[in-house]
Every structure is written in structure tokens, then in C-alpha cells.
């Protein structure tokens, strides 16, 4: 098991390094140009070519690509994530403030999605073909195709504009005022959690139905165990492995969705930072956000793989 974990850890590190290479070089090979964006955005069109070249030189963008890459990577390892081309601010400092916000939002959504989704999926599978199962199945199928922005628009209209119960934008840190923070997060979490709830429900139902037909579940029934023990300890524990895989993958979806959600609700997290970087074609800014997101996603997949051993002892032996 230890060798398995070490091998997967090394693979994960390799994967993250590959992400940095891909993003770094793809961005620079595509036609976009942060300096041009900067010049037009700040209406500095009167700048001469020499001045533009100076800006390029100042940001190190005139050096060979490979050299630029290693300078950036070397900085990352030393804790210097570079400076934004647009705002000149150090990126690491900004990330430190923004990562906790997005992570808090994302993890709350993911945990709610997992718990609610699994619960609903189990009910649906146990009461198969009942009206409750039908309602849950339809709702879960709808839930995986609602655009994030549509949930946001509905939520803002109903709870913000009509009922005036919830604030429609802004973010309050839970450390400052827990109640106000929770209130400001209900709508964003609703947007981000809908897909995980629906996705987990569908996956749980499918794999529960599969597991319920297995021999060991029949054995558990025939031993005369109570329904609760059979379902929770024998069926659910085994049915959860594919659900965990999906939940690991959903973290990426949530982090992607937080770009949209943070824009709508004006939450100063990493998603908004990524969007601003993309709009300004600000290379170091985008690199910083992508690196953090990729580490989070790869780490989630690693944890899922390791947790497999717990869910399914047959894997531990291998």
C-alpha cells in the first residue's frame, strides 16, 4: 500500500509539472499578447514601438520561451509566483487571500453534494420504481443539465429581488460574521452544489442497484440482518467507490463553475481572479490560477485512489 501511495504521489507531481508546461507554452504560442492588451486597455495607444518593446522586456517576455519557463518555475519553488502584468502586484500574495475563499465555497458545495446526493440516491435505489424514485430520477437528470448561471438567476430573482431574504452579491468571511457569511453564501453554494447533488444521486442509484444484486448482499439478507445494516454496511460501502471517483472529478467542475458563480455574486475568490487574468491575457496571473487549480484537482484524484483501498479491500491486496 505504501509503495502504491508513493508511486501515485510521484505520478501526481509529474502530472502537475506537465500541466505547467502545457499551459505555459500553449498560452505563449497562441496569438494573444498581454502587452498589446495592456496598451489598448489603458488606452496607451500613443505609445511608440520602443516603449512597447520596453514593457515587453520589463516583463521578461522577450527572452527565449524555455528560459522564461525555468525562471517562472524556479520562482514558484522559492515562493515567488511572479507579478501580474496588468496590476504589477505579486501573484502569490493575491492567491493567499483568494484560495481560502474559493476552497471554502467549493468544499462546502462538494460536501453538501456528496451527503445529499448519496442519501437521495440510496433512497431512490432502495425504493426502486416507486413514485419517489421516479421523482428523484427526473430531478437528478434535470439537475445535471441546469446551467450554473440559470440557478443563479432564479435564486437571485426569487430570494433576492422578490422575497428580499438573501443578499444578491458580496462575500463576508465566516471569521468576521458567521451568520452574515452563511447568508451571503447560500445562493452561491446552491449554484455550485446542484450538479454534485444530482450527479452523486444518479451514480449512487446506479451502483447501489448493481451491488444489491451481489452474492454478499444476499448473504447478508439471509443472515437475517436488519435492512439498515445490510444497506449501509454491506451495500452502500461497496457502492460508494464509483461515487467517490466521480466526486473527485467533480472538484474540477466546481472550481470551473466558481468562475461563473464568483462573477455573478462578486465573490473575491480565485475564479474571479482567473477570469480577470483571462480577460487581460495576463500570462503569470493565469499560470498561477491554473497551477493552484490543477494541484487541487490532482490531489483530489490522489485521495480518491487511496480511499479505494478502504472501500474495496480487494484492491488493497493488489
Amino acid at each position, binding site marked *: 500500500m505504501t509503495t502504491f501511495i508513493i508511486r501515485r504521489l510521484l505520478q501526481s507531481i509529474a502530472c502537475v509539472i506537465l500541466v505547467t508546461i502545457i499551459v505555459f507554452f500553449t498560452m505563449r504560442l497562441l496569438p494573444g499578447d498581454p502587452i498589446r492588451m495592456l496598451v489598448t486597455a489603458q488606452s496607451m495607444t500613443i505609445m511608440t514601438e520602443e516603449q512597447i518593446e520596453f514593457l515587453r522586456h520589463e516583463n521578461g517576455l522577450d527572452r527565449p520561451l524555455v528560459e522564461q519557463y525555468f525562471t517562472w518555475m524556479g520562482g514558484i519553488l522559492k515562493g515567488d509566483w511572479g507579478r501580474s502584468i496588468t496590476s504589477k502586484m505579486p501573484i502569490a500574495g493575491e492567491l493567499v487571500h483568494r484560495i481560502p475563499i474559493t476552497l471554502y465555497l467549493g468544499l462546502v458545495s462538494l460536501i453538501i453534494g456528496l451527503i445529499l446526493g448519496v442519501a437521495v440516491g440510496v433512497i431512490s435505489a432502495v425504493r426502486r420504481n416507486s413514485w419517489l424514485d421516479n421523482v428523484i430520477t427526473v430531478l437528478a437528470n434535470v439537475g445535471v443539465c441546469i*446551467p450554473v*448561471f440559470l440557478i443563479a438567476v432564479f435564486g437571485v430573482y426569487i430570494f433576492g429581488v422578490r422575497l428580499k431574504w438573501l443578499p444578491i452579491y458580496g462575500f463576508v468571511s465566516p471569521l468576521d460574521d458567521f451568520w452574515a457569511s452563511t447568508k451571503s453564501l447560500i445562493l452561491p453554494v446552491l449554484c455550485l452544489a446542484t450538479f454534485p447533488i444530482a450527479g452523486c444521486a444518479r*451514480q449512487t442509484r446506479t451502483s447501489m442497484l448493481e451491488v444489491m444484486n451481489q452474492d454478499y448482499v444476499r448473504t447478508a439478507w439471509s443472515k437475517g440482518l436488519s435492512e439498515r445494516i445490510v444497506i449501509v454496511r454491506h451495500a452502500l460501502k461497496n457502492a460508494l467507490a464509483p461515487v467517490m471517483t466521480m466526486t473527485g472529478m467533480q472538484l*474540477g467542475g466546481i472550481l470551473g463553475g466558481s*468562475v461563473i458563480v464568483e462573477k455573478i455574486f462578486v465573490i473575491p475568490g480565485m475564479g474571479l481572479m482567473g477570469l480577470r487574468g483571462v480577460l487581460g491575457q495576463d500570462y503569470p496571473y*493565469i499560470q498561477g490560477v491554473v497551477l493552484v487549480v*490543477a494541484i487541487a484537482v490532482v490531489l483530489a484524484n490522489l485521495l480518491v485512489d487511496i480511499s479505494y483501498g478502504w472501500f474495496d479491500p480487494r484492491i488493497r491486496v493488489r
Partner: protein
Amino acid sequence: MPATSVTSEKAVTNVSKRRTGEFRRIVRVLLSRKLVVFGLVIIFLLLVAVIFAPVLTPYDPYKTSLRETLQQPSWSHLLGTDNLGRDLLTRLLYGARISLLIGLVVVVAAAAVGTLLGAIAGYYERWLGSLIMRVMDAVMSIPMILLALIIAALLGGGMANVMIALAVALTPAYARLMHGQVLTVKQNDYILAERAIGSRSIHIMLRHLLPNCLPQILVVMAMMLGGAILAEAGLSFLGIGITPPTPAWGSMVNEGMQYLETNPLMCFAPGIAVMLVVFAFNMVGDGLRDALDPRLRGTI
């Protein structure tokens, strides 16, 4: 030799009979599920909107009319008008073209490139295969919408660039699927036999590997069509995909946000349109998967 020609004719009719029988079975399985039928109806309506948009509405999706801005629904404007006095329903109908076009092109392009990469990776298992798959893994660890945003922004927005961005973001999923399939199919004896008689790799790939994996790829294409449409709507909503005045559903929701209090339909109508179309393609994709290959249940 009349005898052989008769038997071969018989064989041909048998094969075609089996084909139509199989086709009927698939249709029967599809139509037996209410949600799939609902999805098919939505797709039919979508196609009607795509083909007959100019006939269905007397208005122009681009022509602004400052005297008729922000009207509530009425008989002349069934869904009302937007902030520039354009008929909302008209823009919705024309928006169907953009959604469907982008969805189809993206899915076909991603499937073509992804399938090719996956097949090569599965066939040449050694360093080339593992290099391709490691790159695919890396690309997959960047959230799709973020990756598409970056590519679309650097390419400069617009319909073609959005298509490229989304196709790149969706490619790894096909590569992974095809890779897995090829590794399994390769184990079969007939591949070994082909190799033994000295067939060329390209021949084996096109004649044996691809046809064996085709059903799964078709199912995934159907299921991803919804995802592609959803992602395009997200990009356009963020202002990086299809930008106004082109009537893309995502950007229409974004434009409507400012008028949510007085004219919520400006947001709701295009948003619900996206949801219905994605729902329809997902349901038909699900149905197709169950009809073509029930073993895939839960894996795709």
C-alpha cells in the same frame, strides 16, 4: 453457379434483416422510455427552430427598435422585447442555430481528434502511447470551462475560436475512452491473426479497432453534445464566447441580468432554452447507451 448465388443472396437478405431487426430493437428501446421520448420531442422542436426560424417569426433578431424597448409579453411580442427593442422570441429561435452548430462541430471535432489520439496511444503502448495519455491526463486536470476560457480568450473570441477552444477541452475524454477500448479489443485473437499475416498497423486500426469501438464513441458523442452546448453557454455568459449582438443564449442571459427586476424573462427564457436542449440530448444519449450497449451503464 446458381446455387451459390442463391445462398449468397439469402445471406445478404439475412444480414440486412438482422440489421433492420437491430435497428427496430434500438428504436423500440428508445421509445419505451418517457424521458427519451420527451428528449426527442425537444430535439425535434429545436430542429424546427433551426431550420424555420425566418418563417416562424416576422422580426429580425438584430434590428433594434428604440421605441419598443423592454416590453412585457404581448400578442405581438410573445416573450416581450429586450433592452434594445428586439423581439426576445426571435432571438431565442435564431440562438438555437448557434447552440446546435457549435455543439455539433465541437463534438465531431473532439471525437475525431480524441479517437485518433486514443487509438494511437492504445496501439503503440510504449513511450508514444504513455506520452499521449499523460498529456491527456494533464489537460483533464484543468477544469474544462477554465481551459476553454483561456484558449478562447487568447485566440480572440468569435464562433470559430470558441469551437476550437471547446473541442480542445473535450478531446481528452474521447482519447481516454478510445485508449481503454483499444487495449481491450487488442487482446482478441483476430488482431493477432491480422498481425501474423503481416497486415499494416493502419489497416488493423481502421478495419478492426475503430469499428469495434464505434458504438461507444457514438454514445459518448450524443451524451457530450449537451455538455458542449452547456459549456458554450457558460463561455458566452462570461463574455468570452459568442459576443453580442449575435443571439447566443448564454450572452442573452448575461445581457438580461441588469433587467432582472423588471424583465426577468430576458434571463429566464434563454437559460431555460439551454437547460431543455441539454436535457434532451442527455436523455437521448442515455437511451442510446442503454439500447446499444447496456454494459456501459455507470461507466460513461
